[in-house]
């Protein structure tokens, strides 16, 4: 499932295609395609985004700020940040380890392992929540034992963290595996032959090569961790001020017909999404630049 989220170093290709009669469409065709594409883009992407902010400010700044400074909203912010702060480093370490094993070594069952790492992408978030209820819930495998020892996982914070870790599991790994495979292992082998130990090789040779991909994986993981709804909804129990994350808080406000407050909290999440996209573009820009300095202008030469 990596294709759609992989770090993409593009550059502008329009001049190459528009410069030649053979690859150029008539202006009528060109503007029809652009018109259709942009209409679709505006209706399905731009309008929903605008709607969030317009609805959020419909009743003015005061209502907006009241909704955001509500104690329940603040505790939802804290829980959301906590879930992200735990799941991002866990999946980061896993992603690096998995990418090292898969990209730098040849072993049997490698493709199968990659498929297994992709699993959480194709599992419905609702099922991601359900599996933890089946294990840790009152009727679950460990339910009676947890009850006897007075440990709460489902309808409590640990369950929310577990569900978040599950749904954000593949992002870093899926970002790094193709990147490190493409880079090969000659540089690392040279470092080892020259006497570097494993950690030095990783820190001074591999990490500088993969830093943009790594950062990209981290912001994707973070965005999903903060915004996860379905999986967290199943394990949360929706206890206000205790087990409510920001997206769940939006749902509660919305279902209580407090639309302006719901959209105010939603606008906070939407801003975070926009910041994520800005960082993503910055990373792509940096990656493209370091790609050009490493490989010169060969890309443009082969293009023209």
């Amino acid at each position, binding site marked *: 499932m990596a*294709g*759609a989220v992989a770090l993409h170093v593009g550059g502008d290709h*329009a001049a190459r295609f528009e410069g030649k009669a053979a690859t150029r469409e008539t202006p009528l065709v060109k503007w029809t395609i652009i018109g259709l594409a942009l209409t679709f883009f505006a209706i399905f992407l731009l309008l929903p985004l605008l709607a969030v902010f317009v609805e959020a400010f419909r009743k003015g700044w005061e209502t907006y700020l009241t909704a955001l400074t509500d104690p329940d909203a603040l505790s939802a912010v804290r829980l959301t940040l906590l879930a992200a702060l735990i799941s991002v480093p866990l999946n980061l370490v896993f992603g690096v380890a998995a990418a090292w094993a898969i990209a730098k070594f040849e072993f049997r069952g490698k493709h199968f392992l990659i498929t297994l790492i992709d699993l959480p992408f194709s599992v*419905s978030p609702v099922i991601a929540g359900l599996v933890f209820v089946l*294990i840790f819930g009152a009727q679950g495998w460990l339910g009676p034992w947890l009850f006897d020892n007075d440990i709460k996982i489902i309808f409590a914070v640990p369950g929310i963290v577990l569900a978040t870790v599950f749904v954000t599991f593949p992002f870093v790994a899926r970002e790094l595996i193709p990147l490190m495979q493409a880079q090969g292992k000659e540089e690392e082998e040279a470092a080892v032959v020259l006497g570097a130990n494993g950690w030095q090789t990783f820190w001074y040779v591999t990490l500088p090569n993969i830093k943009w991909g790594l950062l990209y994986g981290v912001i994707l993981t973070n965005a999903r961790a903060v915004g996860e709804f379905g999986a967290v909804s199943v394990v949360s129990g929706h206890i206000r001020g205790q087990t409510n994350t920001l997206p769940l808080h939006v749902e509660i406000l919305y279902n209580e017909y407090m639309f302006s407050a719901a959209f105010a909290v939603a606008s906070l999440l939407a801003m975070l999404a926009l910041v994520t996209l800005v960082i993503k573009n910055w990373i792509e820009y940096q990656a493209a630049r370091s790609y050009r300095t490493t490989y010169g202008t060969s890309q443009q030469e082969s293009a023209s």
Partner: protein
Amino acid sequence: MATLKKSSVLPGFNLTLGYTIGYLSLIVLIPLTAVFLKTASMSFDEFWQVVSADRVVASYKLSFGASFLAAGINAVFGLLLAWALVRYSFPGKKLVDALVDLPFALPTAVAGIALTALYARNGWLGQYLEPLGIKVAFTPLGVLVALVFIGLPFVVRTVQPILEDLDTELEEAAASLGAQRWQTFRHVTLPILLPALLTGFALAFARAVGEYGSVIFIAGNLPMVSEITPLMIITKLEQYDYVGATAIASVMLVFSFVLLLIINGLQAWTAKRTGRDR
């Protein structure tokens, strides 16, 4: 392990592979087997009764039907959007390119309430559609709209890099042999794009079938009419019917696994057709 892998001077194989498999088992594999073990505790008749109940079957039809349609819509418009972004210059192109990923970054619940606000009877779009007799919010059409939104980036982002890598020579050759632009597209460009297009379609479809957050707000969730399959799992859970919820989940899981294998096959095909590593 030594017999499993080719020898290498690089260190850390046992450590990283061991950690990978351990963490993968703990977080993903063991939890997922819980679904099948729980399902196995049912007799086949019980299982069949749950997964073939009228209300559940209606939810399959809606979930799979709407997801298929949404992925189809995304395949057509995603191709147009990718084409416009790669081949033409127009004002605002960079911004459009950056915002295409919004459905990946925007929390699904936020998308859900925003779409509902747009398509409700008195909403921005709803107030014009309602007099035409088109009801979107709280109908299966609303489900379709939400699924189009969340699937939008998949086709664009799988097709775009293939389009960028395309050499102009093939199309120039076609033109010099007398082909019209449309003939060139139909017989030269489209066959090259096809594997990526199908991959994008399958990714959007897989995502849509499991989607929950953006759909439940706009769907209205009427039994037999606008209930999606993930909602059926939630409904069973709220009634403390864990076995029933698990039975439906196992049907969805098997479907997801099959789809995942198909997607991997498609990606391998894309790589072969275009010479790209995946």
